């Protein structure tokens, strides 16, 4: 649904180039860097997002991390003990989600735009078709959002996009130290009268680098060798420590 919408949006803007007009591109935007390297000293980082609008409207910037499937489990008391019973699965949800807006989301005029584009964390999880399971869906969805908040991978409130004058805007996106590696996207929208009038999308690559990348690759591609190395390393270090102390 979202893909169809984006294609449509793209074609509309393409047509504004084919038909000669005096209008400039409604929105241009860029990032301070397109790549985050996670090495041994990685402790989180930040990316600056900036651009210019040539039309009226509000800026909404969304950063999505790699999509994953999740399961949320609920505990119940059975014979005095708390045990996992009910569960709900969520498919294709981003593992990282940051959003920055020039105005609070509920002040931006729109009907179903945010749901279609997946703007706002409540719109990331698809509710079940039957209204009966609606309440339990909401509880599980809330639990999932709570979990991501705790890991600091989802922000509770959108960050502000600040304007310098009428056209230039900027904002800062913070990344904590435990961001998952993978393909991220930064989408910047110019929204006016409940419609997208300008849009820019840029990929951000988050990779492990240095010895961490090597160890991760080693652990996943050569698990047996990695396992033996881990064991032998521990045996050898323990042995040397033992010998060393005997001499003392």
């Amino acid at each position, binding site marked *: 649904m979202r893909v169809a919408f984006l294609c449509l949006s793209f074609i509309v803007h393409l047509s504004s180039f084919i038909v000669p007009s005096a209008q400039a591109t409604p929105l241009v935007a860029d990032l301070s860097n397109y790549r985050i390297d996670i090495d041994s000293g990685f402790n989180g980082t930040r990316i600056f997002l900036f651009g210019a609008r040539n039309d009226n409207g509000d800026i909404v910037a969304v950063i999505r991390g790699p999509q994953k499937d999740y399961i949320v489990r609920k505990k119940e008391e059975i014979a005095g003990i708390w045990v996992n019973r009910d569960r709900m699965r969520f498919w294709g949800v981003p593992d990282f989600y940051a959003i920055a807006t020039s105005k609070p989301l509920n002040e931006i005029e729109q009907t179903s735009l945010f749901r279609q584009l997946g703007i706002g964390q409540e719109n990331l999880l698809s509710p079940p078709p039957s209204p009966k399971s609606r309440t339990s869906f909401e509880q599980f969805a809330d639990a999932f959002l709570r979990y991501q908040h705790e890991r600091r991978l989802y922000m509770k409130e959108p960050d502000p996009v600040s304007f310098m004058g009428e056209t230039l805007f900027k904002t800062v996106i913070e990344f904590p130290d435990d961001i998952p590696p993978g393909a991220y996207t930064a989408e910047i929208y110019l929204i006016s009268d409940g419609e997208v009038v300008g849009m820019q999308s840029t990929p951000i690559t988050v990779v492990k680098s240095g010895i961490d*990348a090597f160890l991760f690759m080693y652990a996943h591609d050569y698990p047996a060798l990695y396992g033996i190395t881990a064991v032998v390393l521990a045996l050898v270090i*323990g042995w040397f420590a033992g010998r060393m*102390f005997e001499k003392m």
Partner: protein
Amino acid sequence: MNIYLPIAEMSVNIFLILGLGVVTGVLSGLFGVGGGFLMTPLLIFIGVPPAVSVSTVGNQIIASSVSGFLAHWRRENVDFKMGWFLLGGGLVGSTLGVEIFRWLKQLGYIDLIISVSYVAFLGVIGAMMANESVRSIMGIVKKHSPHARPKLATRLPFKIEFPKSKLHISAIMPVAIGFFVGIMVSLMGIGGGFFLIPAMIYLLGMPTAVVIGTSLFQIIFITANVTFLQAITTQTVDIMLALLLLSGSVIGAQFGSRWGAKLPADYLRASLAAIVLLVALKLAWGLFTPPSDIYSVSVLE
């Protein structure tokens, strides 16, 4: 000062991890336990994913156990013959245990099983040990010989001599004990000393002096097996975290072993019984009180 861990995918304070290693190392040398029962929950508490905590602590236990073991070996306090029999059962049990762990994890019941197992066994073992060691300290004279006489072990078939422990008991016992402990090691992310030591004293009737060294011998191989299997099946062993923990714990284990040799055996057993009961109580509390969040989230593989 922070360092990023590649498998855990998070950054941690170096000194915190080193300190954790030293403390658990001291416990390892002192009591002949791996220290995993303390280290695994503490790692999870500071935010390391549980699967990574369990697998990586197993890796670390190898080193601290080797370090402590060497000290006991030099003092000739190891019954190797008994150790090999325990190991036979232990390798089979721990391999089976890793499979059971994976299966329970998929069903979502692994946390419950771990907690219930801890509470049941630690509670029983702790109570038994407390009873025995306190009576020993208070000088309540027992009717039979200084070290507990095993009843079952002498009645089962396949009896052989274990000269170091001065025992003539069934070989089935050590193999069965090793097997059972092997399963628990894989399920609970511990070294197994908590089960081994009381089992050796009460079920096999080994003298206390030999128990710790022999238990460490067993722990080394079982944890090596589990680490290797976890690396293959779940890729949750974080070498960098393990190395950090190792650095602290090998040093701690040496000091623990020295102090342990000087302290009277029954005081050691009483202290261990106290720790065991405290951990069991804390886990029981966790089972029966409502959790801070009744919802829990995990990624579907």
